[in-house]
């Protein structure tokens, strides 16, 4: 069985895998930045008292969480051009990941902000701080610490979700595995190799999460 496994072909295809890996990394990074922006805006809308901003934010978050990412991706890739918006597949891919992940990021940030005890807000209100001052000086710095670990968890999910972009022919990591599988009929080699690369990315992000929590844990530990 293993004698059929061709390490040589893997080595031969390494440049392709390398390129795929690099594409996966930067498009995930870009998408995550996009997701943070989408998430912060959604979260700010969601924390308003009036329903005018809150209702659309909630509807959007529900819609994204209720539907498969693949369906969202297909809508943007196949549906948008029919509505008159033609975008390159890479842009569509990054847009889809940002819009999708943004909904989850919004909920992570909201949970972080709401986890700050009411007394913190009261203390800052009592000292005469404005809404912006107490968010900036008291609430967000504390919320930031509790949101970093789940945000990195979301980043890991995003990296794995980016594999779906292979279906709209973005030449990222999974696409490289597909090429090896179809060119040489070597699906075992192709998909096992990309799995290894995803595992590598996973450990990088996990290491980052560990570092950040240790770094954040030392500065001003709370009871």
């Amino acid at each position, binding site marked *: 069985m293993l004698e059929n496994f061709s390490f040589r072909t893997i080595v031969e295809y390494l440049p392709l895998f390398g390129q795929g890996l690099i594409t996966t990394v930067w498009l995930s990074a870009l998408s995550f930045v996009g997701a943070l922006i989408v998430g912060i805006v959604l979260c700010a809308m969601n924390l308003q008292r009036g329903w005018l901003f809150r209702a659309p934010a909630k509807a959007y978050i529900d819609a994204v969480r209720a539907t498969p990412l693949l369906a969202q991706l297909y809508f943007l890739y196949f549906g948008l051009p029919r509505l008159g918006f033609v975008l390159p597949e890479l842009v569509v891919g990054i847009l889809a990941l940002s819009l999708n992940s943004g909904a989850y990021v919004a909920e992570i940030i909201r949970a972080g902000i709401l986890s700050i005890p009411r007394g*913190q807000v*009261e203390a800052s209100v009592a*000292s005469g701080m404005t809404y912006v001052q107490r968010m900036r000086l008291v609430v967000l*710095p504390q919320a930031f610490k509790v949101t970093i670990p789940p945000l990195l968890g979301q980043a890991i999910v995003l990296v794995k979700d980016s594999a779906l972009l292979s279906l709209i022919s973005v030449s990222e990591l999974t696409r490289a595995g597909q090429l090896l599988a179809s060119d040489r009929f070597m699906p075992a080699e192709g998909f096992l190799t990309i799995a290894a690369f995803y595992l590598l990315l996973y450990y990088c992000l996990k290491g980052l999460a560990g570092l950040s929590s240790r770094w954040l844990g030392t500065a001003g*530990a709370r009871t």
Partner: protein
Amino acid sequence: MTKTGLTKTGMIDFRGVNKWFGSLNVLKDITLSVEPREVVVVCGPSGSGKSTLIRCVNGLETIKDGDLVVDGQRLGDPATNMTQLRTEIGFVFQAFNLYPHKTALENVTLAPIHVRKIPRAEAEKAGRELLAKVGLADKVNAYPAQLSGGQQQRVAIARCLGMRPKIMLFDEPTSALDPEMISEVLDVMVAVAEEGMTMMVVTHEMGFARKVAQRVVFMDAGAIVESGTPDEFFSHPKTDRSRAFLSKILRH
């Protein structure tokens, strides 16, 4: 009553104040005037509205009807800038509510720097002096989690003093403390009172009340039942309700 008809204005003036939580009348027709430099102790059983009473003074709670005038400004009046008024009112919480991500000194200087716009160096100098005053000169760089409850509460008092307020409100400042830490906090409060601060203090600490309070206000079920000098109140309570209350807190 016309505005010009007000004869004298205290630092804090409740006039017929009512407040409801849903259908519960938590403050009933409160009329109470606190003069400048006066120390008023508010006591009463749990749920009597005493915390709500002082939380109204800096607008942490809003009132339903009646008038509440603080430092000459009517609360709820569109002309009253609440944010500005709050800078004149220090509030000490039962649970301290120090900022856990800031050191003791940063806790004290945060609002002076960002709200009062005092230059950082000047605010830090004042902050160190205040921390020294509450006996924590060696803890300026400690985080709240590294301090005991009594130390945290003293930082919280210093944090209020850093704003140079005209009024200080204390909401059961020693209730969350271990018994041996209560006196260190009370000592600081006595010192603040002796400097002439206008204070409303929700507490059952009778020693403190006898030492510095000009008046004790006893509340029950949202209403002021009795008020008098500490001596009058503790030695010769006038109502059955206050006698029953005192017999409970004095039993031990």
